[in-house]
């Protein structure tokens, strides 16, 4: 298949079906160049590949990982794709990028391959549906929609990606102070409820208690904390409230979803509206609640710079008692050279909103990255790349990945008895993954995200109210989405 | 008002630029510091101005030691070699510049500027900026700026060096005229002896940081006190001929032998009798003092003309006797041609004798 459009070639986009395709049966040297962010989960993939991979087709396969620094990863990949460089055969990608790069003709639609290959079908069936929904589908299909179909792969759904590192946010907390008897008694006395100490306690922790924890532990220098005098101010809680990328949206969405509000739902396009949904009273109240806890957080919260790394650092340096952060950022917390609380930390599920029936809704926004194949490869390379996918999503590989700080999306692996003990946050992660939804996947996601982050930031830094922020977001999204035909 | 320098010394590291010089400049006197470049004359001037700190010795202005005072506190006027006109200011503003420190009224300043402008014929260019001026005009502005106020003394650093010959002559006269009206001690630094000879009341000839001779222009020219001054002052340069004294009588009639065969019996300063026969000396005589003679005499040297340079009213002849070069200046009407043999006479009392230590041999007046 060769499709050359003169105009798009001139404009910088070239979609070339790859040139040579040899016979798949013949063994050959195959090099798969993969764009990957430079961090342990991808480094593990490369190292483990070199140590264990043998091609079932008898190829000599090289996985050539182009490790790109995280902060520049998006630019590098976007520039490579949109300029038609065609350098990469596989790409680690944020799930939000799917729409833009699928529409651009860069990410390969794997639906047929999955349908034709029972092994791949089995893998898709074993993957947690929340992950399949978030990481693989475009146009985006929700978990509910996939499950409604009753079969995997679901008919009429296009599949693109596989989990490279599935991520959720969980609570990181200081066992030494949350389980301190004096503090526990004082908390009980002040709020008439228990200070969460065990995993089970956290399972019963909602946002109200989260706020109480924040208020309770906000202490000045000179005050006592768990029997010791503080030399600097201490804070109870922190979660992301940063202007960069998606560093507030991820947490705000949780509040909105849990309280019954919604973001613009692309899986229901073109009927789904933004105006009236995004800025519904429920959403405004949810965003207001999110904002109300910021007062208990370290002062950086006032700058709109409190991103996922800042809260991690505040926690690791012992400035805050509990944070909600990605599992993917958990490993350094246990590292004595980086963390002053490496031996005092425990992990629980993130708090949620208590429902009328007393249960807690923990719906959250999924993190982590899938990886995808690109469109310009020969059949031979595609087949070998799929072999790599199968190798990666093999339970053995996945277990090794988890043991080395990774996470698995396979339900069979998560169900293994040893899984929860491999890393201290695994139990929370497994519990949380069931609650995950994802933000938009449409090509215009970045425009929407940037505008939203800006409006949220104004609310976080006190320049406008929650209502104003969401009204602005809704108006902007409504106009944009109508313009491009996602809303009729 | 006087300037008095007392054992004034300036050292730059190991280099001694000015070496313990003593100097007095009286009220209304114009003194020229004359010497080849690098002799320390400018450094001396700058020490008087306060732009350079003295290493040792005293600078006295009006009888007061001023070594520790900054230039602004010494109240001196100085004109710089490159004029140092303020490029962004008009001529009028340049002239008025030194008056601001005196807190004069605007009207008073204007009056003074007009006065100086009149004296130096600057009226027509008062509005121009320095970059629009000719060299001569710049020079006049620089002079004007120093005379506009009433300082302790005037200092000029190579005031005419950047002018062409004609302008230089003109300006010499003008400056001299202006200075005569201001009864303040004035020091002019120059390497041009004509400038020094015409403008100065006294000249201090400097070499290697030392003052070789201080005297009136006439005396410096007529009675150089040493070989250096003799050679430095006067154009064309004085003839300086090494010789051996054979003998002398008390009246100053002496016999000299030169390298080669020739010898000379001439009348010189009677002090020559203090030398014992056989002493090495240098005879000095200005080219204009040599006379020509048709026949050889005992007070003449025989030479051959190498080259004739007409100089307008006079003619300069280069001659040699096989061992020494001689220069002679004579009236342009005297016919001279290259290759001619001639005899040059040393008229009585115009020949200076320098002893082996380069000092002039002269009986006390």
């Amino acid at each position, binding site marked *: 298949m060769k499709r050359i459009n003169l105009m798009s070639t001139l404009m*910088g986009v*070239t979609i070339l079906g790859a040139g040579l395709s040899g016979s798949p049966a013949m063994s050959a040297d195959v090099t798969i160049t993969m764009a990957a*962010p*430079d*961090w*342990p989960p991808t*480094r*593990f993939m490369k*190292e*483990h590949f070199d*140590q264990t991979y043998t091609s079932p087709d008898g190829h000599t396969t090289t996985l050539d990982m*182009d*490790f790109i*620094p*995280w*902060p*520049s990863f998006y*630019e*590098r990949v976007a*520039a*490579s794709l*949109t*300029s*038609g*460089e*065609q*350098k990469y055969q596989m790409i680690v990608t944020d799930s939000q990028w799917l729409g833009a790069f699928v529409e651009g003709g860069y990410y390969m639609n794997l639906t047929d391959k999955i349908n034709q290959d029972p092994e791949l079908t089995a893998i898709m069936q074993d993957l947690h549906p929340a992950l399949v929904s978030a990481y693989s589908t475009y146009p985006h299909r929700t978990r509910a929609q996939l499950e409604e179909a009753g079969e995997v792969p679901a008919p009429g759904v296009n599949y693109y990606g596989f989990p490279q590192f599935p991520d959720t946010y969980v609570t990181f907390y200081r066992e030494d102070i949350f389980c301190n008897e004096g503090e526990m008694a004082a908390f009980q006395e002040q709020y008439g409820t228990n200070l969460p100490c065990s995993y089970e306690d956290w399972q019963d922790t909602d946002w109200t208690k989260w706020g109480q924890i924040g208020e309770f532990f906000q202490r000045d220098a000179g005050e006592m904390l768990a029997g010791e005098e503080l030399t*600097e101010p201490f804070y109870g809680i922190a979660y992301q409230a940063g202007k960069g990328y998606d560093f507030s949206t991820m947490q705000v969405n949780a509040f909105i979803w849990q309280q019954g509000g919604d973001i613009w739902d692309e899986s229901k396009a073109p009927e789904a509206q933004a105006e009236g949904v995004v800025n519904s009273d429920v959403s405004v109240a949810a965003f207001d609640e999110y904002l109300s806890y910021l007062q208990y957080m370290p002062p950086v919260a006032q700058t709109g710079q409190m*991103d996922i*790394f*800042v809260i*991690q*650092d505040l926690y*690791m*340096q012992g*400035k805050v008692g509990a944070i909600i952060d990605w599992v*993917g*950022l958990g*490993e*350094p917390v246990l590292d004595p*050279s*980086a*963390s*002053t609380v490496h031996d005092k930390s425990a992990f629980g599920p993130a708090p949620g909103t208590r429902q009328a029936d007393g249960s807690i809704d923990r719906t959250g926004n999924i993190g982590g990255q899938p990886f995808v194949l690109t469109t310009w490869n020969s059949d031979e390379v595609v087949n070998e790349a799929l072999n790599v996918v199968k190798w990666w999503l093999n339970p053995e590989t996945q277990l*090794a990945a988890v043991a*080395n*700080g990774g996470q698995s999306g396979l339900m069979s692996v998560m169900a293994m008895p040893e899984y929860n003990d491999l890393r201290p946050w695994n139990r929370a992660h497994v519990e949380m993954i069931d609650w995950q939804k994802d933000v938009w996947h449409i090509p215009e996601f970045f425009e929407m995200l940037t505008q939203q982050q800006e409006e949220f930031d104004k609310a976080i830094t006190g320049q406008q109210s929650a209502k104003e922020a969401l009204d602005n977001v809704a108006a902007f999204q409504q106009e944009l989405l109508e313009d491009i035909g996602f809303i009729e | 008002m006087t300037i008095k320098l007392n054992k004034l010394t300036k050292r730059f590291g190991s280099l001694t630029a000015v070496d313990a010089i003593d100097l007095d400049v009286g009220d209304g006197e114009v003194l020229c510091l004359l010497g080849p470049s690098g002799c320390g004359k400018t450094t001396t001037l700058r020490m008087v101005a*306060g*732009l*350079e*700190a003295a290493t040792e010795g005293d600078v006295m202005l009006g009888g007061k030691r001023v*070594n*520790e*005072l*900054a230039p602004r506190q010494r109240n001196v006027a100085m004109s710089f070699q490159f004029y140092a006109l303020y490029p962004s200011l008009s001529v009028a503003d340049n002239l008025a510049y030194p008056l601001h420190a005196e807190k004069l009224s605007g009207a008073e300043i204007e009056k003074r500027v007009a006065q100086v402008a009149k004296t130096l014929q600057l009226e027509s260019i008062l509005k121009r900026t320095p970059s629009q001026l000719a060299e001569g005009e710049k020079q006049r502005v620089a002079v004007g700026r120093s005379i506009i106020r009433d300082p302790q003394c005037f200092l000029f650093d190579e005031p005419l060096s950047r002018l062409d010959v004609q302008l230089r002559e003109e300006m010499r006269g003008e400056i001299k005229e202006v200075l005569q009206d201001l009864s303040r001690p004035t020091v002019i630094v120059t390497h041009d002896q004509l400038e020094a000879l015409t403008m100065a009341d006294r000249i201090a000839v400097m070499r290697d940081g030392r003052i070789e001779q201080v005297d009136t222009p006439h005396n410096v020219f007529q009675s150089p006190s040493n070989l250096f001054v003799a050679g430095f002052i006067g154009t064309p340069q004085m003839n300086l001929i090494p010789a051996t004294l054979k003998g002398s009588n008390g009246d100053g009639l002496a016999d000299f032998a030169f390298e080669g065969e020739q010898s000379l019996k001439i009348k010189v300063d009677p002090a020559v009798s203090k030398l014992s026969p056989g002493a090495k000396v240098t005879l000095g005589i200005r080219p204009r003092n040599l006379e020509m003679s048709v026949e050889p005499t005992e007070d003449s040297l025989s030479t051959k003309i190498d080259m004739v340079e007409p100089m307008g009213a006079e003619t300069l002849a280069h001659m040699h006797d096989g061992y020494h070069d001689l220069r002679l200046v004579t009236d342009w009407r005297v016919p001279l041609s290259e290759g001619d043999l001639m005899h040059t006479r040393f008229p009585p009392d115009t020949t200076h004798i320098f002893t082996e230590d380069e000092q002039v041999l002269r009986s006390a007046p």
Partner: protein
Amino acid sequence: MARKHREIGKAGWGYTAVASVVGLIYFFPVLWIILTAFKTRTDALAVPPKLFFTPTFENFTSVFYRASITTGSSQATDMGLYFFNSIFIAFTSVGLALIVGTIAAYAFSRYPLKGNDTYLFIILTTRMMPPIVVIIPIFLMFRLSGLAGSYWGIILLYTAFNIPFSVWLVKSFFDELNPEIEDAARMDGATERRVFFNFCIPQVLAGLSATFVFGLILTWNEFLFALLLTGVETRTVPVAMARTLGGEVGVDYGLLAAIVTLFLIPIFFVTFLLQNQLLRGVTFGTVKK
């Protein structure tokens, strides 16, 4: 006792002391970065901030080695190669721009073309464009020509970035020279080449040094194009540096500081050596004595 008065424009050790205090205050952020290079993460983020601490050299080790995820054994980070690349690419491209620019500058100065000033202005304009705009076309061009990921690609690009600056600066130095000397040399039978190399170049050497330093400062830390147009083999330090800005933790302050510190050394040294020329060159040659 009256104090000895100071001569204008000269100052002594007292002045040095005052200037050093000001200089150190100004230098403080750099000093802090250098100190951070010797700190553990905990020390780097300590409250109150630590001026005195037990120095660690681990950050410097980490610049060149990292632990394997699977085996924990130490792996080279290729940072040595990146340092080489940075130095090689920066020096070559700045040098090349200087050579090409000097030749062009000489022509602009001595053999003005029709519309000389227009050419010069267009040359300068290329420096004014926000780089983001040209990224996509350049990227595609590099792919088509096979220059992407090669030394030559990035060197040529940096050369192009430095040419406007070189031409303008060096031309102003040529303009300053007295062409009579060159004419005199031509009268004496010197060839054009000799005039250029034996008369002109020696007189503008100071200007060339200044141009070199300025080009180097402007090229040394270039990030965006290096990120997009270098490959694994030709990656430069500023790109590699970005790996310390976030991943599993936020900014790795110690490691970043260590790389910054090491990366400062070559350019600091060159600047120090050519300091006097820098002072002269920055005037764009228009200031004469």
